[in-house]
């Protein structure tokens, strides 16, 4: 069992965990003058804004990446060198990019009169960590420098 994680894998593992935990915290908050403050997580379907379902894709990307890194580092499971024809570095880059793109899209989306909650920011930071970790892995593998 290998337990020493590279900085890239640490970022991915941390980012994935942060995204998963953040998805259960407040994604949007709203301070209603009558009803008081309420909040929705990425798993709630209380708002007609398309959070659940789409933010879920970002969370799944992060969880997949973190699980792969965790299993590789802390278990004896023999992983195939490729999945669907992709190397793991390629998959991390693709999943990290998708997660980051979705979270940036949520950041830019018009959400008035709602506000971002702590869960959104945790997911956003987690997604950025996933992307940076994936790029670092890609560069370290020696396949990316010229391409990127």
């Amino acid at each position: 069992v290998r337990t020493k994680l590279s900085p890239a894998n640490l970022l991915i593992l941390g980012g994935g965990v942060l995204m998963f935990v953040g998805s259960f915290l407040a994604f949007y908050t709203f301070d209603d003058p009558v009803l008081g403050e309420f909040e929705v997580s990425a798993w709630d379907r209380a708002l007609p804004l398309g959070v659940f379902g789409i933010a879920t894709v970002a969370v799944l990307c992060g969880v997949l990446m973190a699980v792969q890194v965790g299993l590789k580092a802390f278990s004896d499971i023999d992983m195939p060198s490729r999945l669907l024809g992709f190397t793991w570095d390629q998959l991390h880059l693709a999943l990290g990019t998708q997660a980051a793109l979705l979270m940036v899209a949520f950041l830019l989306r018009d959400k008035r009169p709602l506000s971002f909650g702590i869960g959104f920011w945790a997911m956003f930071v987690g997604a950025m960590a996933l992307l940076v970790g994936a790029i670092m892995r890609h560069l370290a593998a020696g396949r990316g420098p010229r391409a990127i």
Partner: protein
Amino acid sequence: MDPVPETSTPTCIPRTIPAPIPNARPKGGLKSPQTERVHGTLFIGTIRGGAVDGNKSPTPAELTILIAGGAAVIASFLDFAGGMSTWGSYVFPIAPLLPLYGAVMAIEIGLSTFAGRRMPRRVLGFTWEQIHLLLGLFAGAMAIGWLFTDLSRKSIGFWLEVAAGIALAVGAVRLQRERHTGAIG
């Protein structure tokens, strides 16, 4: 008066065999990146059947991607939900991601199939087959994700986007089989 050339003596005319074909592109479908590295040069210069002047008829998977990509782009301007298109407030720029993926896939297929353009073999270390698979699967995942959202008043644009996203995923998977990438099945 010039002497008549002797016709009985065979002459050697140098020719390149096979003759170079303009705009020919390698047949997609190398088994794996390892195979590609070792045997890739063997396939250079071969083309798919039916190619004339760099154009060829699209395969079923390519046709699926072309139609689904086009439909996704067109649907993005129709009513998505609540009287807004994907480019409207509250869903932009999340909802346009799916038609954007479809557009990239369809444009690549269109350029390489109909325009005979030679696309770069790899982009950021990914082959075009891999890019199609990734974009197709992400489009499919987002289409299914949209299905479970609680957007109010889902309209024709929404359902077209969902259908197109799933079709893009199916087309991308079929493309792997058609081109024998070995990624699936």
